[in-house]
């Protein structure tokens, strides 16, 4: 039998729609595959099906998965879907099929010895770790108009994972987190809910207009970071192990 390859959009809805199509096709796991975007090398004897993202089908599938795989399984899928790794959609498919074949699918994430489950577990953990790092490493600067602006360049698509934290923490502030890699914004107005804005670019001129005391506080922070270090214990290798260079380009104290 030929392999069937479902090709979908790189979004949770896209993957959910593709899962819907794949599961209903009735084909065995070994002949099924889901890919994001274009499968680079077309293989002979494979059938390619382009999946149009369908919010309704996506929601139906999500609902079913929440019931059958429980909260843990469902969050595993959502986090893995935010990964930048190319094999994520197919790993999710495998994990879902393993879960659905189990007597109690809500235990699926414990089945780490299953290859696909293990992979989803790994992807989801990497994504959560990156999100967690950003909770600490994100830096805001205060603009003239009072808005707090942060620019980040994460590997994975983590904006929706970090925004709720800042909504609670800085609920009385206007703030914006800009993912430069994906041109996405998480935007929050004081007193209301956060949202994601796409298809816009950052207004560089306004982003450079700082509030009156901004530079003073940046300077105080830099001084603090250097004076709090103990010279007799200096260990930049360890510093780098804990705070990899890729984060530093967006951090005030390393400018």
């Amino acid at each position: 039998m030929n392999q069937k390859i479902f090709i979908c959009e790189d979004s949770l809805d896209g993957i959910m729609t593709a899962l819907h199509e794949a599961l209903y096709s009735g084909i065995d796991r070994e002949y099924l595959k889901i890919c994001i975007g274009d499968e680079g090398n077309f293989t002979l004897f494979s059938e390619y099906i382009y999946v149009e993202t369908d919010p309704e089908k996506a929601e139906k599938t999500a609902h079913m998965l929440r019931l059958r795989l429980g909260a843990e399984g469902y969050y595993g899928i959502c986090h893995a879907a935010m990964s930048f790794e190319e094999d994520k959609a197919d790993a999710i498919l495998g994990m879902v099929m393993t879960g659905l074949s189990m007597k109690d699918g809500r235990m699926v994430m414990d089945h780490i010895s299953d290859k696909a489950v293990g992979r989803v577990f790994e992807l989801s953990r990497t994504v959560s770790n990156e999100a967690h790092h950003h909770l600490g490493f994100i830096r805001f600067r205060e603009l003239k108009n009072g808005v707090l602006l942060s620019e980040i360049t994460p590997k994975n698509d983590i904006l929706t994972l970090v925004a709720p934290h800042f909504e609670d923490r800085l609920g009385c502030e206007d703030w914006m987190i800009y993912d430069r890699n994906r041109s996405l914004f998480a935007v929050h107005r004081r007193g209301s809910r956060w949202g994601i804005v796409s298809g816009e670019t950052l207004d560089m001129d306004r982003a450079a207009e700082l509030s009156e005391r901004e530079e003073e506080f940046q300077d105080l922070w830099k001084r603090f970071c250097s004076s709090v270090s103990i010279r007799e214990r200096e260990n930049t290798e360890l510093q780098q192990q804990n705070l990899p260079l890729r984060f530093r380009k967006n951090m005030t104290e390393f400018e």
Partner: protein
Amino acid sequence: MKIQQDMTISEKLEILSDAAKYDVACTSSGVDRKNGGKGMGNCTAPGICHSFSADGRCISLLKILFTNECIFDCKYCINRSSNDVKRASFTPDEICSLTMEFYKRNYIEGLFLSSGVLYTPNYTMELIYQTLLKLRTEHHFMGYIHVKAIPGADSGLIEKTGFLADRMSINLELPTAESLRILAPHKNRNAILNPMRQIQQGITASRNEIAVFRNAPKFVPAGQSTQMIIGATPESDYQIVSVAESLYDKFSLKRVFYSAFVQVNEDAALPALPGGPPLLREHRLYQADWLLRFYGFKASELLSEERPNFNVLFDPKCDWALRHLEIFPVEINRADYYTLLRVPGIGNKSALRIVKARRMAVLKFEDLQRMGVVLKRALYFITCSGKMMYQTKIEEDYIARNLLNVKERLPADIAGGGMTFRQLSLFDDVNFGGTINGIGGGQI
């Protein structure tokens, strides 16, 4: 004593953060608090690291002294009254402004406020209280606050302050009363243990009240911690670990921190440490502390009067396992959680994963790797379905020799001649990252 007038806030910050840096605790952990729409800030239980300084330690809190003007003369301390150093004091408003502005920019999780003793313990404690009161009530700051209780301050002041703080600590400073007498002549053991007991009782009372009245004010909700200086006095590791154990058992402390002695003063009463601060020793103590808190070990299992100090070559758990080969190898698919925890190379997270995953399928060696088990070390101590991974002898010398070839994941640089120190992850599987917080712990 040089007291500078008219200092800028920037100069003060430089002096008072520099003076605070020897306090090792910088965690923001232990309390979950949502903001709920008022003021600024919240707290997350595992804590959050915001940066790392050039010594590799986590920066989570704005760690400063209120003042470094001090009437005491502790021999190990840079701020002791007999030293000729630049002195400075903040005002409560300056501290509030720094905290709020840093917090808003997501530089920090909150404030860690300690202090030298200005005029009297009560005078100093009152200033600290006023600062916290302003932060909490005028600025509606809901982020994390760790505050020091000043030894000798009235219990009433300590209590008021405790209702505004998340964590309180009072440093034990040195492991024994005798050492304290020699190196910190103005402090005495009781002036430290009494407030420690008071804070413990306050925490218990507050928990009981909250159980009845949900909105009762919380007293030190993130618990109490303390710190000991390591290597300034002659105590053995066994003495130190036993002190820590009784602090956990009898004073319900959340954390005990260990601070390798850094020689900042010339003093006949202080040891010369040509090799620099005893960082490997400090590291071993953190590992042992971890075993006490999370792995069900007792101090007396790790060390004894006859073997009073940790092995330089092996971490305390490995060392224990090598001395208890009679219980190994253990079967991965059957051994209970606490037995798994005693296997070198298996941490608490991986042990939990094993217990869950083996309900689904019989586990093989390749599965273990994925669960965060460090097979290179565990393989001498485990079987999967009755088989060991390789033909190995269960013999102390043989295993020890092989384990020595597997380099311990020592903090960067402790391994090579340049001894240094690292901040360890709270999770056992360092490879996979996770919350990094506190100082110490780490994979064993």
